[in-house]
């Protein structure tokens, strides 16, 4: 029974392949240029410090999609690859930012049609009473179609302690759509590494449908400094040389403290430094030059409480500071 069908399929396949001569060529650099994907990749490289392994994987995915496109151009059909992903890493390691870029990259490579990112959490997917969850989840999925659905802290969807939790229903609908409509949207699940691992263990269906598990490593001190300078440059500020040293000392202390969240902590520290910078200028009075308005001095950073409390008396305060 199976024999003839297979032969038939093979026959038709060889036919469609032979329509285009085997020695026909496509130019790789033309396809690259046409897709404009290099710009986004370049931007990714420029604006995101570190994350070597993540960038490599994104490059690989981009290469696969490009080659897929060239193959299609020559009549070599293959199923589009499943591109659902999981981003794991500590807070502030750039998961959301990369997800945004991912949407743009996949759009340039024509894998998704629109390239928008819909970022949701458990609240947006799971309902409050019986029958509320399915329409809610479907609504979100519909909004995300043609783009990327980013589920932050995805492990909250599954509550082990309560087997009647509606999260399970949301997961089931999600699975169905991830499987049946993978041309229509890409799902990215994100969260802390250890909790995501438990989540995947208790939901093998989800884990097996995710092709790419990307782990976001913590930033090193040098990378954090580079991030700080990038952030400042974006807002047209800059460190004085002494301030840079002070900030390095600040980071060294801050990194040892609890609840250090990488780039997010850097951003918060800079925001507070700006606050002190502004207060210092106001207190000084008189004429202020453009350089003064741009430059964050060491004293703006050294005023931080991290330098005064040698040993943080409680974690809570350390986190606030």
């Amino acid at each position, binding site marked *: 029974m199976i024999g003839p069908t297979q032969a038939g399929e093979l026959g038709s396949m060889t036919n469609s392949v032979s329509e285009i001569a085997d020695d026909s060529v496509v130019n790789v650099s033309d396809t690259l240029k046409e897709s404009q994907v290099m710009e986004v990749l370049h931007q990714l490289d420029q604006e995101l410090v570190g994350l070597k392994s993540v960038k490599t994987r994104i490059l690989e995915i981009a290469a696969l999609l490009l080659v897929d496109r060239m193959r299609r151009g020559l009549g070599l059909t293959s199923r589009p690859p499943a591109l659902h992903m999981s981003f794991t890493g500590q807070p502030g390691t750039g998961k959301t930012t990369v997800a945004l870029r991912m949407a743009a990259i996949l759009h340039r490579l024509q894998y998704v*049609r*629109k390239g*928008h990112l819909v970022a949701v959490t458990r609240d947006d997917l799971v309902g409050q009473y019986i029958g509320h969850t399915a*329409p809610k989840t479907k609504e979100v*999925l*519909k*909004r995300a*179609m*043609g*783009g990327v659905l980013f589920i932050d802290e995805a492990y909250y969807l599954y509550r082990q302690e309560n087997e009647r939790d509606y999260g399970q229903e949301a997961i089931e609908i999600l699975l169905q759509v991830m499987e049946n*409509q993978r*041309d*229509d*949207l890409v799902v990215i699940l994100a969260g802390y590494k250890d909790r995501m691992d438990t989540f995947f263990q208790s939901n093998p269906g989800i884990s097996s449908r995710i092709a790419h598990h990307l782990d976001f490593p913590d930033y090193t001190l040098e990378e954090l400094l580079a991030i700080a300078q990038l952030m400042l440059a974006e807002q047209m500020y800059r460190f004085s040389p002494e301030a840079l040293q002070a900030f390095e000392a600040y980071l060294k202390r801050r990194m040892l403290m609890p609840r250090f969240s990488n780039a997010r902590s850097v951003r918060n520290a800079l925001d507070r430094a700006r606050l002190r910078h502004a207060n210092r200028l106001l207190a000084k009075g008189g004429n202020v030059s453009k350089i003064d308005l741009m430059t964050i001095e060491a004293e703006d950073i050294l005023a931080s409480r991290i330098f005064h409390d040698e040993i943080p008396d409680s974690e809570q305060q350390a986190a606030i500071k």
Partner: protein
Amino acid sequence: MAFHLTQGTFSFLPPLTDDEIYKQVQYCLDHDWPINVEFTDDPHPRNSYWEMWGLPMFDVKDAAAVLYEINECRKAYPHHYIRVGAYDRSKGRQTIAISFIVNRPTNDPGFALGRQEAHDRVMRYSLHSYATDKPKGERFTD
């Protein structure tokens, strides 16, 4: 020739394929027109209030989402008329910008023309869908 209901846009064309529906819906979405899916088994031309399949879709960007709902509606009501409407709010009008049928029953018997003799040899005409002789839900089958 079997009866073919002509209501809304494209209704004199052969039924749209899913690819064609996708493109038309995407056109609507690209113009920022929210989409609504409706169904009925009472195809009288003056029956303007078809039943709504869910709420209008406001935040959808890609037609795949609308097609998903159309297919869900087809699953639930395979023998009903299903149409897609799109509303252009920029005009401030209380009517939709486009409406077209995306699903038809296979065997609609069509309409009867009723004639009523009125005063002074005046003739009044009416349309009557044969299907509506049966109760709701039993009108169209395989």
